[in-house]
């Protein structure tokens, strides 16, 4: 079994302020996990704002360098300071999808421009027939076609269609790994499921691994194989998605699950959260602890 992505004890600190009021913020601390090249999976990073999930994603994409530890992709170190050729080689393997589909493409330019540039750069060809074919193939994978997209500007399409185009663009180099940073949080409810289902089919049909970053436990449960839960920069629980979410062990995971609004008892207005749970979860912020493996395969952070 070869590893596709190896995140090795990665930390990231940011320094705020300047010479005088210096303050260090630990965005990510000792994150580690790895993805295998043979079994494509949807690996979910769950966290609230300020949990460090986006920083982690940025480091995996090579947009930010870790302060400590390293990230290896197919055994090669991911770094912001790579040369242009290296960067392009990396980008052909790892592609991102972001949060806001309405922002994915420059509103002043045609959508196909990005698809075209991706195809030309990563397939290293100038042959328009080849480029067109690659674009169409990628669009077919997301349920669109080049005919529908060609010549259109972003404002002429719906949020769901735009997000599909963004995913299609990312798929053009046939990357084995896709990083999806909150891909559905800005998409309307009626279109959300079509994106989530699409991610699922990318894994099942195209064998693409997806790192799915979200704060939504329900969709994470719905599509992911494994997940990690992050609290203020630290992984507090990691393991099989169903195992973890069915019976979370860490106090913070428990609190998150308890805070998910359930529709099972719609209309009953049950909104109380046990205050003890909140205190328990917040009390652990800032404590180091360490991740300990459990017999059921998951790892939970324990303290003291």
């Amino acid at each position, binding site marked *: 079994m070869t590893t596709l992505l190896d995140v090795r004890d990665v930390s990231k600190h940011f320094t705020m302020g300047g010479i005088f009021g210096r303050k260090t913020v630990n965005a990510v601390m000792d994150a580690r996990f790895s993805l295998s090249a043979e079994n494509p999976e949807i690996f979910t990073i769950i966290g609230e704002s300020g949990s460090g999930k986006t920083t982690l994603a940025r480091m995996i994409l090579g947009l930010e360098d870790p302060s400590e530890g390293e990230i290896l992709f197919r055994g090669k170190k991911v770094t912001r300071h790579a040369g242009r050729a290296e960067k392009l080689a990396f980008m052909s393997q790892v592609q991102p999808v972001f949060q806001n589909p309405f922002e994915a493409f420059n509103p002043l330019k045609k959508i196909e421009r990005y698809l075209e540039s991706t195809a030309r750069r990563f397939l290293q060809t100038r042959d328009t027939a080849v480029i067109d074919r690659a674009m169409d193939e990628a669009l077919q994978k997301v349920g669109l076609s080049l005919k529908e997209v060609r010549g259109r500007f972003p404002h002429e399409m719906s949020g769901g269609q735009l997000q599909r185009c963004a995913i299609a663009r990312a798929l053009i180099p046939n990357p084995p790994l896709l990083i999806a940073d909150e891909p559905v949080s800005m998409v309307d409810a009626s279109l959300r*499921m079509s994106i989530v289902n699409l991610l699922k089919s990318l894994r099942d049909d195209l064998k693409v691994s997806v790192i799915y970053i979200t704060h939504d436990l329900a969709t994470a449960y719905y599509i992911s194989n494994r997940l990690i839960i992050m609290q203020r920069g630290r992984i507090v629980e990691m393991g099989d998605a169903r195992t973890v*979410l069915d019976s979370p062990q860490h106090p913070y995971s428990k609190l998150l699950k308890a805070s998910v*609004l359930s529709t099972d008892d*719609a*209309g009953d207005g049950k909104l109380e959260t046990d205050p003890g749970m909140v205190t328990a979860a917040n009390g652990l912020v800032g404590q180091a602890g360490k991740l300990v493996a459990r017999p059921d395969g998951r790892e939970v952070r324990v303290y003291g």
Partner: protein
Amino acid sequence: MAEDIVKVEGLKAYYQMNYFGVSREVRAVDGITMTVRKGEVYGIAGESSSGKTSFIKVLAAAIRPPLRVVEGSVKFDFKNGPFEVATATPREIEAVRWKHLSYIMQGSMSVLNPVRRIGRTFHDFASRPMGLTGKAFEDRVIAHLARLKLPPEVLKAYPHELSGGMRQRVTIGLATVCHPEFIIADEPTTALDVVVQKEVLSLIRDIQKEMNAAVVFVTHDMSVHANVADRVGIIYAGRLVEEGPTRDMFFAPKHPYTAHLVASLPRIGDTKQRPALEGRPPNLADPPQGCRFHPRCPLAVDKCRQEAPPLEQVGPDHRTACWRWQDVKPLVGASAPSGVMA
């Protein structure tokens, strides 16, 4: 059954725009009839550009060009007398503002003046409608804040010094400090983390119960409605397509759009394949003929393409605008609790 606090009848509100010589009419609210009862939480659900924002602007008597009420009426029945939004004079609007009708706005970050201390903002907003000043006013505000679990020190703070959850509680405090009878809450929890969201929701619910105020709660998130609303109304393309008690809406929807919205909510502990709704919401400047949902509707027949269905009574308190409501089934076999008409 409780009395109505507001009756909306045949409301049509359009944006009439003239931009560099091109005039456009967007039918944001296109014939809505509904009522909200005293002391209830009425949830309004709808996607972006469904017209729900324009609808609540009219409800809040915040109609400003280019938005215009073209037809219909919005009649409030406040303690100090009736109030009709479409014909109210600025003086009349001022008289009900905050004292009877208040508003919780979305985006807690940007609704508070960044260069003004919270205490000053409270003074600006509430001193006049409450008819109190100085110490008496401050005491009342502090007492109210205590109810929202906010320390009196927040009055001395600037907005940027508070966390997102605190700020949202401050805006709830601002909206409720005068004990209004009718509160509009526009996506008050959208930008919040789940833990804080639940806290804020339960706070809104508690304070609403305590003051026995009517709340119109607007959000696109159906799981929020499931937990705070007594009744839910769904707006699609400027029209109310279904309205009913929250449980019925979730377990026995009678409109394919509602059925879809409910079905597309994944749940922890359930990995059944969830259906996706294809197509895109209609353009309100040029809505489709007939039922506006028909281009996306799996049940659509010829009649749907030609004639717009009226809002029909289909159960106690339950109305829907669908020619084929009898054929609508819940899309994912959720086990309906007993006592719900299926």
